[in-house]
């Protein structure tokens, strides 16, 4: 019923004794106390607000058990800024007003960060396709797409 796990989040190791049924998103939020990762769709796996990276790949953390992440590296939005300096994606989201309530933002950032590594020079259509798994109820996506495009240019 319980398992010992070692999960690294943003470079910090968490050794915990946790129930097998604990979802990874709840481990991140409640055990590690990193509440930047959100829950938007009561854990159904359709909104993408809980998107994090595991071993540098974007996944929805409500569709995983924490025990599945044992021995793996997790990255959350809290780890995006380095030494107090925002990631280019964060800067461009700010610059282009790519968020309103901000609920969807951490998940979109973690997805977009991996996407830009895979496709450093994406077209608008490719960016929109990459965002299929992330719902935003406020912005209408236009500014999000612009911000991602402009972060890609900045990072080139």
């Amino acid at each position, binding site marked *: 019923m319980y398992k010992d796990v070692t999960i690294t989040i943003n470079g910090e190791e968490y050794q915990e004794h946790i*129930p097998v049924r604990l979802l990874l998103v709840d481990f991140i939020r409640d055990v590690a106390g990193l509440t930047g990762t959100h829950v938007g769709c009561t854990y159904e*796996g359709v909104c993408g607000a809980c998107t994090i990276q595991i071993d540098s790949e974007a996944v929805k953390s409500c569709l*995983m*058990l924490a025990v599945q992440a*044992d021995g793996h590296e997790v990255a959350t939005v809290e780890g995006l800024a380095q030494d107090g300096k925002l990631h280019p994606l964060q800067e461009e989201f700010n610059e282009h007003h790519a968020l309103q309530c901000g609920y969807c933002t951490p998940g979109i950032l973690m*997805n977009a960060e991996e996407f830009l590594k895979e496709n450093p020079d994406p077209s608008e259509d490719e960016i929109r396709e990459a965002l299929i*798994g992330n719902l935003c109820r406020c912005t209408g996506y236009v500014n999000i797409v612009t911000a991602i495009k402009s972060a890609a240019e900045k990072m080139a």
Partner: protein
Amino acid sequence: MYPSVIDNYVRPKSVDEAIAAIVDGGEDAMFIAGGMSLMQAIKSRLVSPSCLVDLQDVSEIKGISSDDTGLRIGAMTRYREMANADKLRGAYGALVDAAAHVGDRQVRNRGTIGGSLCWNYIAACTPAACLGIGASVELVSRTGAKRTLVADDFLGSPLETAREDNEILVAVTLPTPEPNTGSAYKKWGLVADALPVVGVAVLVQTDAAGICLRARVAFSGLGDGPCRSAAAEQVLIGARADETSKIGEAFEAAAAELEVQADMWADEDYRRLLMRELGKEVTATAFNRAETGS
């Protein structure tokens, strides 16, 4: 949407260990692959496994390889890898089409071909694509015995397959393609890359002049589960890519032949329309791939 109590979780490193673990885990033990269907089922308590046998470390069933008999796709190969697999282009392009548009990139980063086939969800893309391209599945049982089934025999009604309890699906196999073979898959859903209301997979093999010698036509999204249309396949044989009325006739035949359900997403007429329109488009792509090889 929280899982009920799960007693145990294990992470075997080989197929043998995985089988031993599923047997040890008892009646309510289940394999977990990408978890993209199973986690939803666990959270909604459609299933309540007592033990989860996680296949993430079973490296012998990951990846796509080929030899002189054909291609082998390990059960733990993810959509992400299939969507980018040059080996599958052309003859088995239907699988690339299906994998590239499953859900979203986060789902494709985890979901596997083995999990999709074993779950056989009504609106799943990979089962129909596998049926369309004539794939087989390899299963290993608790005694270590291996059996191979063609997709037609493996896939049943939605959420049903010929897999026995404790049997593990290890690979999907495909014969070395004949020359001039192409396949394609396309779905229509309510939003971009959603679960299909209807999806169509078509494979054609032509002679050097582009005349169809062999055809396979399979659908996703139908109430009976992934199924082929013998009537459509019959009409396609002898057709050329530019004979659009004959190709149209094939999908008229499919829409007339197969049982079609009405539900909140589409009534019967609309589903039949989708079968006809998608069918024509997918067949054109399959012919094109048969001709160009990619």
